[in-house]
């Protein structure tokens, strides 16, 4: 792919330093939802087997009418700081569309002020880690307008652990070991064959 490098680079430089920085910031949201989940502090759950029950409702201490814009609620499973450490792909960023704290969706529901609950079987592709639950309220333009979470502002209380599946199966293990052993045996066979050929040509 031969392109006039200089021209292309200069042209693209114009368009490329534009990083879009508009969008909703987490710090601008109020915690107007009260979210609770069944796992207790330090509880260990198994992916693919155990369940989490989440309930959420509007916090009535806020002025009535605050929730008039809320249309949908999305409940997410989020990483606690310990599981984000040295893992920049799970980083918390204030600009929500770049935020990677809560990648796992639990459920999405139309908004009602109370009587919301959902029981979720932890999916098999959830990785091992320490988690909490957060719910976002979205308006009609699908922008976040409020949130609620099961932990405190520092994300240090009420955290629970999930243990992932290994993904390994007995059949895989056996196949792996057999093929490896066969490679070594084949190699030994090659050397043996070479030796015999050499002896043969010497005797000629």
């Amino acid at each position: 792919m031969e392109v006039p490098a200089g021209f292309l680079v200069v042209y693209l430089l114009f368009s490329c330093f534009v990083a879009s920085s508009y969008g909703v910031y987490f710090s601008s949201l109020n915690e107007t939802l009260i979210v609770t989940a069944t796992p207790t502090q330090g509880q260990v759950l198994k992916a693919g087997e155990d369940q989490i029950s989440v309930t959420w409702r509007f916090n009535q201490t806020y002025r009535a009418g605050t929730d008039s814009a809320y249309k949908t609620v999305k409940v997410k499973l989020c990483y606690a700081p310990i599981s984000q450490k040295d893992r920049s792909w799970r980083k918390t960023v204030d600009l929500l569309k770049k935020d990677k704290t809560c990648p796992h969706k639990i459920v999405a529901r139309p908004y009602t002020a109370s009587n919301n609950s959902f029981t979720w079987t932890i999916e098999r592709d959830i990785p091992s880690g320490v988690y909490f639950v957060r719910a976002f309220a979205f308006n009609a333009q699908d922008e976040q307008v409020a949130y609620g979470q099961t932990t405190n502002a520092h994300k240090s209380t009420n955290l629970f652990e999930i243990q992932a599946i290994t993904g390994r199966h007995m059949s895989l293990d056996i196949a792996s070991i057999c093929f490896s052993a066969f490679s070594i045996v084949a190699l030994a066979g090659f050397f043996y064959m070479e030796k015999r050929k050499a002896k043969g040509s010497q005797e000629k």
Partner: protein
Amino acid sequence: MEVSQNSDRKFTLPVDSEHKATEFRLFSVATPHMRAFHLSWISFFSCFVSTFAAPPLLPIIRDNLNLTATDIGNAGIAAVSGAVFARVAMGTACDLFGPRLASSSLILLTAPAVFLSSIANSPAAFLMVRFFTGFSLATFVSTQFWMSSMFSPNVVGTANGLSGGWGNLGGGATQLIMPLVYSLIHTNIGSTKFTAWRIAFFIPALFQALSAYAIFFLGQDMPDGNYVRLEKSGEKHKDSFSQVFYHAITNYRGWILALTYGYCFGVELTIDNIIAQYFYDRFDVNLHTAGIIAASFGLANLFSRPGGGILSDLVGKRYGMRGRLWTLWVVQMIGGLLCLLLGKIGSLSGSVAVMLVFSVFVQAACGLTFGVVPFISRRSLGVISGMTGGGGNVGAVLTQVIFFRGSRYSTEEGISLMGVMIMCCTLLILLIYFPQWGGLFCGPRKGVTEEDYYLSEWTDAEKEQGFHKMSMKFSENSRRERGKKGASVPITSDKETPPTMV
């Protein structure tokens, strides 16, 4: 298969007095020359596919094995560090056992590491499998050695550039192959994510093992046969390993090129390791797209590395060795500049465009490097090639340790800083000086000939026994490196005239 007198042997391609092919026909599989070419590039390709099979699937693997950025960085370093010494050792193994046995043995010995990747269950296990799989990259040396045994000097550059470049292609192809295989297994067969990637690893493992079998059964070391038979019949003379090694490590040019190769090829390996994750994380593309983008970096090897080799030959014809050195310096400097730029760009399309241009320059620099390597030493060509190749991996280790391990620098900062380091290390090329041809800034020393340079590697006792004959032949052939201007310079030296050649 009977082989009668050498002169009776019929080859499909035209050959020289050593029965090395003087023509290179890409679409032929004629025994033994073109068959050796296809066997060597395909097997080298498979080793690259296996060594870099993990990076495109890292977003899945890092969740399954609970890896941190430090773990991932360490595994990436381990993947390229094994081959540092393995490449030097491979040069020796080719001398002793021949490239056919040496390469098929190494490939079969490392295939278990790829199979066992499927059952890795922790960061430590992941590091171990990547470490042992990485040893297979030493097949680079056997590839170049085999091509030099099969092809005459006028086409050996093309053979080496194509086999090296098309092998490196594996580093790009794997970024496409692995996500594709993974999604076939995950979506179509329905395995969960954490099982699908494990099954996916069987594909490169089987490919690698099969290529080793192909080399063993279909290949041969030299145009006239295999080493074992040739040595027993006395046709091949064995050189002294300690002498060969000594003359390689005392030649400073070998060390300089080893370091600068670390900043073109080493950088290429580093990018193979980090680029898919970079696009996935920074630009929020999905796994499949990140793989395609990452693949296009390595896929440029299809033409860019061979192009570098061909460019070196073209420039060498007109301007000699000085032209080769200048071109290498300029191309690698531009590569460094583009790398610096790559880390600074914040848009997806800009990044992809700069990455593509960067890939062409950095891979061409690899091809240009090996346009100079064959002239550094004649006696110790194997070890010098191994040193340079090993140096490439050292560069990969260094850049990953300094810039891409843990969370000290963000990936984009690391890429830019790596560009700066490329430019600094490339400056060392300014120090390379051949007394018979000159360097970047200085012309050749008066009265010094090619014979003076190449025959200085042999002692008088060895010369008396006639061991230096191939260096004599090579000195004559390398007269071309004076370029068009220097061709008319007289070739008598101040020393006594060397014995005439038969």
